[in-house]
């Protein structure tokens, strides 16, 4: 598999939310640096060339899809880096390195339940696209912002999908319950999950309680993205520090501490 660092041009940057607001959502398409054989679940580090030195690190984003021509990311503006990335325009140059990390299992004999929380939906677009038998797949998507902010419809066009919106804090117990029952229902199959840590914790507990095989994609602040700095570690099942960027981001639910 190719793994490299390249300067590539922005093909298209499409704002899915209100421009320049925190909570903004962006679909960013770059020239493909040769990553068409990436595996869904892998990510890349991005660093726009216009950044000076004041932001020291690149920013990790899941590869949402890639073909011979381009690679696409979806991100939400949450801080300095994503804020600046949101002003990228076609033709701007970005330094990218990847594909990084490991990936979600893709067993041919399903069923596979995809559980996504917020921007955690990003990697499942490519997963749904590449998985050989879409009938085996099912997506449950918990989200806050309007559905149009996420690549949901692109996935729902291909596989069975349901979205549940958290409109206020009161909806949370309902969502947790729903997620738990989805995990339980997946018994005998495989659960793949990506989303905020509390979301992953819910799934981890449910998977343990009901003896369901699950894989969780973790987030962490990252400096190098390649396993060298040891800044992004989490604890595996035996309390050893392992790099989220290199040994993950995808971990078996029963071999990681959240």
């Amino acid at each position, binding site marked *: 598999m190719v*793994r*490299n*660092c390249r300067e590539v041009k922005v093909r298209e940057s499409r704002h899915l939310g209100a421009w320049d607001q925190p909570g903004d959502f962006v679909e960013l398409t770059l020239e493909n640096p040769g990553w068409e054989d990436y595996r869904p679940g892998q990510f890349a580090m991005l*660093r726009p060339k216009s950044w000076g*030195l*004041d*932001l*020291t*690190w*690149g920013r990790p984003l899941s590869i949402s899809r890639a073909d011979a021509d381009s690679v696409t990311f979806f991100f939400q503006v949450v801080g300095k880096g994503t804020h600046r990335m949101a002003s990228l325009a076609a033709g701007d140059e970005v*330094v990218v*390195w990847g594909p990084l990390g490991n990936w979600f299992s893709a067993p041919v004999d399903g069923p596979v339940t995809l559980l996504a929380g917020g921007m955690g939906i990003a990697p499942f677009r490519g997963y749904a696209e590449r998985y050989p038998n879409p009938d085996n797949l099912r997506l449950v998507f918990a989200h806050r912002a309007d559905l149009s902010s996420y690549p949901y419809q692109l996935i729902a066009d291909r596989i069975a999908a349901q979205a549940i919106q958290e409109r206020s804090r009161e909806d949370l117990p309902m969502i947790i319950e729903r997620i738990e029952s989805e995990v339980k229902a997946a018994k005998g199959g495989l659960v793949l999950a990506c989303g905020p840590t509390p979301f992953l914790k819910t799934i981890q507990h449910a998977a343990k309680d009901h003896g369901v095989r699950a894989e969780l994609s973790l987030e*962490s*602040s990252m*400096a*190098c*993205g*390649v*396993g*060298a*700095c*040891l*800044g*992004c*570690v*989490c604890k595996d099942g035996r*309390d*050893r*520090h392992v790099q989220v960027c*290199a040994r993950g981001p995808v971990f078996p639910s029963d071999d990681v501490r959240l």
Partner: protein
Amino acid sequence: MDLRVEFAGLVLKNPIITASGTFGFGLEFQDFGDIRRLGGIVVKGLSLKPREGNPMPRIVETSCGMLNAIGIQNPGVEAFVRDKLPLLPWRETAIIANLYACSVQEFGALSGVLAAEEGVAALEVNVSCPNVQSGGAAFGQDPAQIRKVTEEVKKHGGGKPVIVKLSPNVTDIGLCARAAQDGGADAVSLINTLLGMAVDIRTRKPRLANVVGGLSGPAIKPVALRCVHQACRAVKIPVIGIGGIASAEDALEFILVGASAVQVGTANFLRPDQAFRIVDELPDAMRMAKVEDLDALRRGLVLP
């Protein structure tokens, strides 16, 4: 253009070395460049026994820099020798082991393990651990301790060049460099990180689980350059410059103040091919600055 540098018994094909803790064991960067093109690689800090390091969070981004409190997570010196060293191109690129211990004896034992390893070109001694026996200040902040540790590593290091890596968190860096020289060091390298801190006003907590951590990156380059300048004037042994080097021009600045070679640390996080790019850009940067020869540059600083 001849980029070779020779000092302290080392022969490097160019003066660009990657700094400990920022380049893993080198192998992590193989997809981004040919690691044999580097002048040298200082591997992640090694201790006698494996270490899990500090709890998370361990890193924070700061303006033009970062804080880290990794806590020398490493598989232990034996695993390094067994699992990593054989994979490294040590015949072509100097592989420098970085030693971390918290007592003089432990430093001796660590050196002993590495003394016989053909693949290890030199020993770099990281004296940043607080010495619990002598009051809790780091070894590296006390010239007497620096000297003792240096002597011990020299004694057990099997004749390998010993480089003592100095901390900038001291009143007089020249004294520390001299202590290393007096202890028999073949070279000093500096600077290690500046002690720093970051807090989160929302959670009211430090951003590092360890509370304090080491500041590195372009932010600290002026401090590093001053320390290297002072160390070069304080000792006769060679000096390796470290701190905020992110370009070929930066590397030349350190050589101008007297460094024999340099290490690139945090800049490896700007992009994983940055160290290779610095090697590539060095000849052009030298031409732009009308530097024909690194030795001449090294003696070239014009003081008022």
